[in-house]
């Protein structure tokens, strides 16, 4: 009887272990499949990443314009999205009346629930026309001396994609950084108040700086999301492999390249070039997520350690 029971125990433990290992296996499979699928060699890898011409008909594959597009759109997303998210996080953890906390965080988290293709649809038909007719001419008129705001204005552009991404990263950045702010012990705030600091000074001196590694983690997570976001960007970025100084011009990103051209790719070299673009994407996002999760895990550990005291 006892032996049978412990055999059941061992069986269940093995089962859980096997399924648990599936996560490790999945990670390895991702890298294995994308590495073998991309026929990557060091030399062609450099030509691929640094080449600025993308011409599948001529069998020339360079993804520098797409890397540029991914980097610039993500940077815009962070520039716009992070301050707003931090504002939301500060409001939810420091300022909000108790009754508003839960509804407001629910509303902000609903932004994460909206499917990205719906962001795309809204971006194409509502946001992009609005920006093209009102916001962009305004920017050009007042800041047109900056090269990034010069040239012909397109609705589907790098800047539009960046703005859509900024909206999309608000939920993750604000919820992770809010958690970081909530983890700041009250003694920190009390110390600042005791020194005569105003509310905003307290938030800056003792809350934001105490929580900075958590905030950094949330920014990295937001960066990963923005870099890897596909369908919404594909719909509003213009899908043109260009490196143009102007943010008003159409561009391309690694993810939208794959979504846009995979169905048209007929030759094996074309497909493996797209898979290689996917590998670049995977590596970048994997690394940013590792940094973010490392920062978060350190935070959690220090909080657990503090709770033993």
């Amino acid at each position, binding site marked *: 009887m006892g032996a049978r029971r*412990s055999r*059941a125990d061992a069986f*269940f*433990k093995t089962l*859980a272990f096997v*399924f*648990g290992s*599936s*996560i*490790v296996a*999945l*990670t390895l499979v*991702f890298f294995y499949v*994308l590495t073998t699928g991309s026929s990557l060699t060091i030399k062609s890898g450099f030509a691929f990443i640094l080449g600025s011409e993308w011409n599948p008909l001529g069998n020339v594959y360079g993804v520098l314009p797409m890397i540029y597009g991914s980097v610039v759109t993500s940077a815009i997303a962070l520039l716009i999205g992070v301050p*707003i998210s*931090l*504002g*939301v996080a*500060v*409001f939810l953890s*420091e*300022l909000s009346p108790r009754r508003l906390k839960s509804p407001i965080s629910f*509303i*902000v*988290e*609903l*932004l994460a*629930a*909206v*499917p*990205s*293709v*719906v962001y*795309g*649809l*809204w971006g194409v*038909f*509502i946001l992009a026309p609005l920006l093209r007719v009102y916001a962009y001419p305004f920017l050009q008129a007042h800041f047109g001396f900056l090269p990034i705001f010069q040239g012909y204005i397109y609705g589907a552009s790098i800047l539009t994609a960046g703005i859509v991404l900024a909206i999309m990263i608000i939920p993750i950045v604000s*919820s992770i950084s809010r958690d970081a702010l909530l983890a700041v012990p009250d003694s920190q705030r009390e110390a600042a108040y005791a020194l005569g600091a105003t*509310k*905003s*000074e307290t938030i800056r001196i003792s809350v934001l700086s105490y929580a900075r590694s958590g905030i950094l983690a949330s920014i990295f997570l937001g960066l990963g*999301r923005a870099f*890897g*976001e596909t*369908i919404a960007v*594909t*719909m509003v970025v213009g899908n043109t492999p260009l490196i143009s100084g102007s943010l008003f011009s159409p561009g391309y990103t690694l*993810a939208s390249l*794959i*979504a846009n051209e995979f169905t048209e790719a007929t030759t094996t070299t074309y497909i493996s070039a797209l898979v290689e673009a*996917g590998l670049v*994407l*995977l590596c970048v996002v*994997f690394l940013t*997520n*590792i940094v*973010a*999760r490392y920062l978060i*895990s350190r935070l959690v550990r220090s909080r657990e350690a503090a709770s033993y005291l």
Partner: protein
Amino acid sequence: MKFWRFLMDKVLISLAFVSVIIAIIPLASILYFVTVRGAPTINLDFFTRLPPTPEPGAVGGLGNAIQGTLILVGLAACIGLPFGLLSGIYISEYGRNFFGRSVRFLGDVLIGNPSIVAGILGFTLLVPPLHSTSAMAGAFALGVIMIPIVSITTAEALRTVPNSVREASAALGIRKWRTSLLVVANAKSGVATGALLATARVLGETAPLILTAGISSLWFSGLNRPIASLTYYIFYYGTSPFKNWVSLAWGAAFFLIVMVIGINLAVRLLTRGRRPYAY
């Protein structure tokens, strides 16, 4: 000097209020336009008929896309839920070692993976062998996306069960594996929350389906054949120049958003205000 500090304080504090409003505006705008443009196209035809031709006035619906999305998400759940649930149990109940912590860490990292990469995985493994995009490949890609989400949310839910439950169970001589199931039963609302959120997430996925499931203008005709999906139709019709197609895209977006928000509200009721794990 004092006045200056006072003023700065008010300005900075109101900036936080302003950012909350800025964050809410896009959501309100999306919900408004999706409802105004999408809700009128929802009628019986929308659920029962096949997609129309692009001619003006042609009638049709997205019945096949609704059917396809349900099939894809159902099959994906068959992959994602068992793998996610059991690996979540492993992380929480058996994972107090280096390997367990690595599984947890990798799960967290995989959650943030771009979904298009799961699409490439599904494509490479399943599309060439079957000679076409297929329901199977689509469900596989979505299942792969679900696994880490379900796994981490399950592990988080189990972690909230107090150790006294495990100790009481062990003291009664109940075996470890029954104890683990007992812990799962104790955390069932949290576990269900994770499963629901993961389902809602793959319900809205588009990019991986383009590579794996493809698109079809007919009803479901087999697991090894291309299959229609709501999200792909929103993308396909929303970027088309035809008026009746575009309005169907808004209709599909409305239907999708109603489902996703419905799931989120259900989750909220399930957790009764406790915040689900943010991933």
